[in-house]
């Protein structure tokens, strides 16, 4: 039964490629509906985290309620659900879409439709969302709205696109009118047992976890006992509220409504995105479909440069974990680096963000080992183990074979660059799947690739070989047996476990050589000569030498200016604090990432 309130709710999100102006459009909608006065607008209000603002990406989903009176005088409740904008967070995107009935598809008038936009559009169509295409930045000199409109038509959108300049505030009223007109009202049963979709969660120091929900059926009110259907936890609701965009408590949320509740939940890990909230007493028979736990894809060792920072690193990770359900970490020990953690991430961006937050917000100096995938190690005795640390991949006779995770990668590229794209995919052990010529001089290239190969600089290489035009999206495609070997690095004759990597046998020699060369470049001269060796199964395949420092003297001491001399020595010593002493060798952070930055042969 659709009641009157429900018929005046619209839940929608904005789908856009990075830089196509999603956040600016959101800002204008907030202003035009009077949700936020123009003078209070921080640029791109929805991107709250400092890092998000700096990088122009959204990491956490947001939801804002707006009041809007349509042209015929009917008041409406518009809920804008902002979605993360990066392939690392694809699952979070899909949960956010599930909370909506419609989507604004924003396309840059000069750039046209990008691969990521398309991927998200298809996701939106899968969820039966009504799509309202918006061509943004029409005021730019390079704008070509006709071409963009043609592209939108080619991808199957019949709805006439709205022409907008979010920056200049053009066409905003039309966007709001289209949301009311073209996005369907939610359909939910107010009398059925509560079913609310968790689409995000955020830790608040005072109230515990704020669970972001979209109510599908029933209602959630203060004082209710609620249960998580997948997670299993039961909680009493302390507060229910909406974002306007500041938090505002309400009595309850009915079907179709979007907001949050707090129930003294201690960690976001009890509130997995995609889970269904129901009544503890009056339980729904079926959870909402499509739940899967967030799964880290890449793993990396995190070690404090100074051993005494271990405790602080643990505390910092625990704090980040409160707010990041996709992050995992476990203590590990490295012979070279001492005590640290093996942490799991959704992807490289996620790793980068966490690393930067640890350094910036918690003031930690870290050594991060090169990220790797999880291998399935099959032993000769028939059992299998999942291993997330290259140093632990066995090399002896107990090893039967290794399996590595694969992805199906979809690359959109101008037709002129198909050759270089396929060459790149081939170099990275890709298996060709399909090639499709699209309108507008574009092509879709499908490859199955090892995740371990695209994790590294694949995206950068793709961009450079297509002059920036190609884009990439990928989905996990299970495990596949591969002829992988562990490549070890020895510094000064000692194996440095934190530098071990797993590579395909065909590339092992070339990468071993390139890695040794790179390490020679990034490891500074020491007081003694440092041999660098790359070895496979104990056999050395490459050797380089960091020559001993020859000269480091401060000669002149003019007019007794000892102070300056001391400051130079102190600075020199401080510089070494950023390096980890492995054996007797001072190794900078770049060395641990050297495998990612090998010079092309």
């Amino acid at each position, binding site marked *: 039964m659709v009641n009157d309130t429900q018929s005046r709710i619209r839940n929608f999100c904005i789908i856009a490629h990075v830089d196509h102006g999603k956040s600016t459009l959101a800002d204008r909608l907030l202003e035009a509906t009077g949700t936020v006065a123009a003078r209070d607008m921080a640029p791109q209000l929805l991107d709250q985290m400092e890092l998000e603002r700096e990088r122009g990406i959204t990491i956490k989903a947001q939801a804002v309620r707006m009041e809007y009176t349509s042209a015929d005088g009917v008041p409406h409740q518009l809920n804008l659900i902002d979605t993360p904008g990066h392939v690392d967070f694809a699952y979070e995107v899909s949960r956010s879409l599930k909370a909506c009935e419609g989507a604004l598809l924003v396309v840059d008038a000069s750039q046209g439709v990008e691969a990521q936009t398309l991927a998200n559009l298809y996701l939106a169509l899968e969820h039966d969302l009504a799509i309202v295409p918006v061509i943004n930045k029409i005021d730019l000199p390079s704008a070509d709205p006709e071409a963009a409109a043609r592209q939108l038509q080619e991808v199957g959108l019949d709805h006439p696109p709205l022409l907008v300049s979010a920056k200049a505030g053009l066409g905003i009223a039309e966007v709001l009118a289209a949301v009311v007109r073209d996005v369907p009202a939610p359909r939910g049963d107010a009398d059925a047992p509560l079913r609310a979709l968790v689409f995000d969660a955020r830790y608040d120091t005072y109230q515990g976890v704020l669970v972001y929900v979209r109510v599908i059926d029933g209602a959630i009110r203060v004082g209710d006992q609620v249960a998580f259907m997948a997670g299993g936890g039961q909680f009493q609701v302390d507060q229910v509220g909406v974002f306007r965009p500041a938090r505002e408590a309400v009595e309850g949320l009915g079907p179709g409504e979007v907001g949050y509740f707090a129930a003294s939940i201690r960690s976001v890990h009890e509130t997995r995105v995609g889970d269904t909230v129901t009544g503890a007493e009056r339980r729904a028979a079926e959870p909402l479909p499509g739940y899967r736990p967030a799964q880290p894809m890449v793993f990396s060792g995190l070690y404090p440069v100074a051993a005494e920072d271990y405790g602080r690193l643990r505390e910092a990770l625990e704090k980040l974990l409160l707010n990041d359900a996709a992050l995992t970490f476990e203590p590990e020990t490295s012979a070279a680096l001492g005590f640290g953690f093996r942490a799991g991430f959704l992807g490289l961006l996620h790793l980068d963000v966490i690393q930067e937050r640890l350094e910036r917000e918690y003031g930690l100096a870290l050594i991060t080992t090169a990220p790797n995938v999880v291998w399935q190690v099959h032993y000769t005795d028939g059992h299998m183990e999942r291993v997330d640390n290259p140093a632990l991949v066995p090399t002896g006779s107990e090893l039967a074979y290794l399996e590595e995770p694969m992805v199906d990668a979809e690359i959109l590229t101008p037709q002129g660059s198909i050759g270089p794209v396929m060459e790149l995919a081939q170099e990275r052990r890709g298996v060709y799947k399909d090639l499709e010529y699209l309108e507008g001089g574009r092509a879709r290239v499908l490859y199955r690739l090892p995740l371990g190969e695209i994790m590294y600089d694949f995206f950068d290489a793709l961009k450079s070989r297509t002059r920036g035009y190609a884009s990439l999206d990928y989905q996990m495609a299970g495990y596949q047996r591969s002829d992988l070997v562990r490549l070890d690095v020895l510094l000064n004759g000692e194996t440095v476990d934190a530098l071990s990597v797993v590579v395909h046998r065909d590339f092992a020699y070339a990468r071993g050589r390139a890695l040794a060369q790179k390490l020679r470049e990034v490891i500074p*001269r020491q*007081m*003694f000569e440092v041999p660098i060796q790359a070895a496979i199964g104990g056999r050395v395949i490459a050797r380089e030498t960091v*020559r001993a*420092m*020859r*000269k*480091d*003297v*401060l*000669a*002149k*001491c*003019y*007019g*007794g*200016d*000892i*102070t300056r001399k*001391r400051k*130079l*020595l*102190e600075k*020199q*010593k401080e510089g*070494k604090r950023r390096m980890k002493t492995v054996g007797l060798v001072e190794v900078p952070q770049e060395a641990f990432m050297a495998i990612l930055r090998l010079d092309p042969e």
Partner: protein
Amino acid sequence: MSGGFAVYVHVPFCVRRCTYCDFPVVVGMGSAERSRYLDAVAAEWASEALPAGPVTSVYFGGGTPSLADPRDIGRVLEAIGGRAPIQAGAEVTLEVNPGTVAAGSLADFRQAGVNRMSLGVQAAQPHHLRQLHREHTVAEAHLAIRQMRRAGFHNVSVDAIYGLPAQTVREWRDTLACLTSWEPEHLSLYALQVEAGTPLARAVGRGDAVLPAEDMAGDMGDLADVLLPSLGYRRYEVSNFAQPGRESRHNQAYWRHQPYIGVGAGAHSFSGPGPDGARRWWNVRHVRAYMASALAGKDPTAGEEHLSRTQLAGEFLWLGLREAAGVSESAFREVYGRSLPEAVPGVVEGLVAQHLLWRTGGRLGLTRRGFQISNQVFERFLSPNLG
């Protein structure tokens, strides 16, 4: 502590600024203003609080002190002696740039009380002298030494720099051969330091000047070690070589934590170690600002720092290690109340194992290898643990 203190007088006049120089200097000062500058020095000296004991050495550094009127130098020495006795036989050095001084005035400097001269030669190749903006020739430098001898100076030092842009090892060898053939008593051989803000730093930044690679500069540094001992010079400090008994007393004062009073623009002073640490302070660098202040009877001090006991103990070690004779372990324990193994656990053993330090007869010092990369050794001694 041996007692007494050293005096440094900064004399900032120059005919032209050298490309690598970042000391307080002025170019183009007339003789009247130069005399007034030394008036300012005398005025500052008159109001300095002095450490106890006699003056053990005086050093006129620059700049180009040889541009000063010998009578003005004499006046300053008189002023110094007027407030603290100058020890009998105290070393009184004047820095000289070739071509800036007439034969006659050398005798006048000697008359004024100067008994040691330090001649800035820097290189024995005309193209290197040109690139450094040195206003003299090699022949003028040689002439200056002969004139000094004639004027009765028996303690002469020469300065040279290695690691110059485009310098070859062979050129450096030639420079050493040339300078030693003049038979000075003392040689200061400096590794070129590219200081920010100098014309040299800009030239290096633009790529107009290319410094020798580290290995090559290292070879140059080693060359002196190989050549000079056979010619009767002993390395007694990181960058200083001397005939036995001709080591610079003034330089040693810095490495041995003796108090020193610096007068003149940008000069540094040191109180000497006390129970609570020590104080170091320095004057305004700007030459005319310094003059205005000192002549008006104001304190020209621009900054100061307090050194903790820990910092002092660190300096005791890393300054002491600059000298070839090294430091005495028992002297450290006497002054700072802790043995070296307690103050810097494991450090000495590690450096000895790496052949960077020797340790014999209760002393430790840099090995030849240690001298090459002395900064790496000193760094380990910056903050000893005094408990």
